[in-house]
């Protein structure tokens, strides 16, 4: 046991150190590109754009939350993630991403808040957008720490406590951003993404072979969990599938690190290629990751309290070192995607909040230091919050995605409808956030035959109703109000040129 623990910790530790070294090296070798990125030169190529976006998927939500859900409720989660990420998000990639890219290129925007603030002539709107984004980034970064803590518990069978895993990833996350600089992140995302994609497939092959092949596994499933093979049932109602897919897809498009990538593509060719490759990449990652969780259910794997199914399954069916390698890889990938999030979050903070409101004349160096301190502080706070374990990985992730999703429709309306007004934007964004926050935090109350602040209305998730409200308020209030004199109404519609 002690020797197994030694191997596990050795592999995890060594992998993380190597990942950090690679990050540092990648930063040194590519400093010019990376510098461009920090300075928002629009120079990110297809592979890097695709993988930094992909890296967001390489989060605790995918590696640990998803397989857990598949283990408990069946593999339909693959469909949710497929529809949402492979199809809906790809369409948003065009509708929001390409449009933002064109607008951003014409006017030099780097953040979502900056773009909206300029169009509506309002620094306050800019700050509101940045503030809301940072608010919902918080639970998502926290999710990575929870995932790491739970992964270590599962891998070491509880010998290493939850808090140690969460603390470990926090320290590495901060080190990554501070040492490897604020700039080398995109490249390490790519390396880690490729590594994880390969390793997940190896894991599927290994488990399938060790357990007698896919047919034996599906037979085991048919015996132990026959309901898992049938489409739907249990948790998975059509409403659940649609609500989850829609809110997550729209939420992802508003994620700081994703949304910011929309501005940085080198050319529209980059956006086109990424767009078409997206569904394939999504299937390649999600099918193996979630099928592992499903198989674990059929094999009768039992998961200790507070752990994830994936490490437990791998420990059972693959050698100790391999299981540790997968977990280390997942943790490192989670870390590098958290870095992307922290990085974009810090640029929202410095560009949209600090500069306009606190110190417009801050030097570059001062801004860079402030960003680093902000990152360290943010990661420490999310770590503390992660110790309270406020929910499962999927529920925490879902809440964060839903919060971002509330901003998506007002942004889309603003991008395409020149008659949108500033008042309409405030109404749409703040109104839906108030509605959504109330449903997250206020306990459900019965009023007559209706439940207020419950999880659903008429069986549909409240996040979806919040989105409808956001669109209604934006369009309705815009129609009733006149544009303020400082607004640039034609900013998003006129003078856009294709490549």
């Amino acid at each position, binding site marked *: 046991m002690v020797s197994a623990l030694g191997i596990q910790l050795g592999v995890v530790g060594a992998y993380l150190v190597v990942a950090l070294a690679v990050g540092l090296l990648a930063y040194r070798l590519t400093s010019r590109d990376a510098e461009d990125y920090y300075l928002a030169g629009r120079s990110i190529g297809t592979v890097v754009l695709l993988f930094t976006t992909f890296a967001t998927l390489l989060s605790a939500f995918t590696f640990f939350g998803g397989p857990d859900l598949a283990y408990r409720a069946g593999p339909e989660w693959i469909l949710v993630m*497929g529809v949402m990420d492979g199809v809906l998000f790809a369409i948003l990639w065009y509708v929001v991403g390409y449009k933002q890219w064109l607008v951003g290129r014409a006017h030099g925007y780097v953040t979502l808040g900056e773009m909206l603030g300029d169009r509506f002539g309002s620094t306050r709107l800019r700050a509101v957008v940045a503030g809301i984004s940072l608010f919902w980034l918080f639970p998502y970064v926290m999710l990575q720490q929870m995932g790491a803590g739970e992964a270590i518990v599962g891998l070491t069978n509880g010998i290493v406590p939850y808090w140690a895993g969460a603390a470990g990833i926090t320290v590495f996350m901060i080190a990554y951003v501070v040492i490897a600089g604020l700039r080398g992140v995109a490249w390490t995302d790519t390396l880690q993404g490729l590594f994880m994609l390969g390793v997940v497939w190896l894991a599927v092959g290994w488990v399938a072979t060790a357990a007698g092949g896919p047919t034996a596994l599906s037979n085991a499933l048919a015996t132990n969990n026959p309901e898992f093979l049938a489409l739907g049932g249990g948790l998975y109602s059509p409403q659940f*599938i649609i609500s989850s897919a829609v809110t997550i897809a729209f939420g992802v498009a508003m994620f700081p690190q994703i949304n910011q990538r929309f501005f940085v593509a080198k050319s529209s060719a980059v956006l086109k290629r990424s767009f078409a490759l997206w569904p394939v990449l999504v299937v390649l990652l999600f099918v193996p990751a979630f099928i592992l969780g499903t198989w674990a259910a059929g094999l009768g794997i039992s998961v200790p309290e507070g752990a994830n199914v994936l490490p437990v399954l791998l420990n059972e069916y693959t050698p100790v070192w391999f299981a540790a390698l997968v977990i280390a890889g997942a943790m490192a990938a989670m870390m590098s995607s958290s870095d992307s999030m922290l990085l974009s979050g810090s640029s929202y903070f410095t560009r949209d909040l600090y500069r306009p409101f606190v110190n417009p004349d801050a030097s570059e160096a001062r801004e860079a230091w402030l960003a680093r301190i902000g990152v360290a502080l943010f990661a420490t706070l999310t770590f503390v919050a992660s110790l309270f374990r406020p929910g499962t990985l999927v529920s925490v992730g879902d809440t964060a995605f839903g919060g971002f999703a509330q901003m998506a429709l007002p942004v889309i309306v603003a991008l395409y409808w020149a008659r949108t007004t500033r008042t309409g934007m405030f109404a749409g964004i703040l109104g839906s956030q108030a509605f959504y926050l109330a449903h997250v935090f206020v306990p459900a109350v019965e009023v007559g035959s209706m439940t207020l602040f419950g999880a659903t209305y008429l069986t549909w998730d409240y996040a979806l109703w919040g989105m409808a409200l956001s669109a209604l308020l934006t369009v309705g209030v815009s129609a009733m109000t006149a544009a303020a004199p400082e607004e640039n109404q034609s900013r998003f*519609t*006129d003078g856009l040129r294709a490549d």
Partner: protein
Amino acid sequence: MTRVRIDYRWVAVFAILVTFAVPWFLWGDSRVFAGLPLWLWWHIGWMGLTAVVFHLFTRTAWDRGIVGEGR
């Protein structure tokens, strides 16, 4: 203002791609093929098809609904 053409055929195509990424017509079906549920095979195939259609979109209709026809 430049006129932006919305191509409803592509809107319909995208709507179909989204709708049938989940094989609703196999709801409750538990047939298994080569170790994986049949509905999962549908999904995998559909995503492949989606990638091909998306590629065609980028080749023939990119800019539709976003950039005006010029002139």
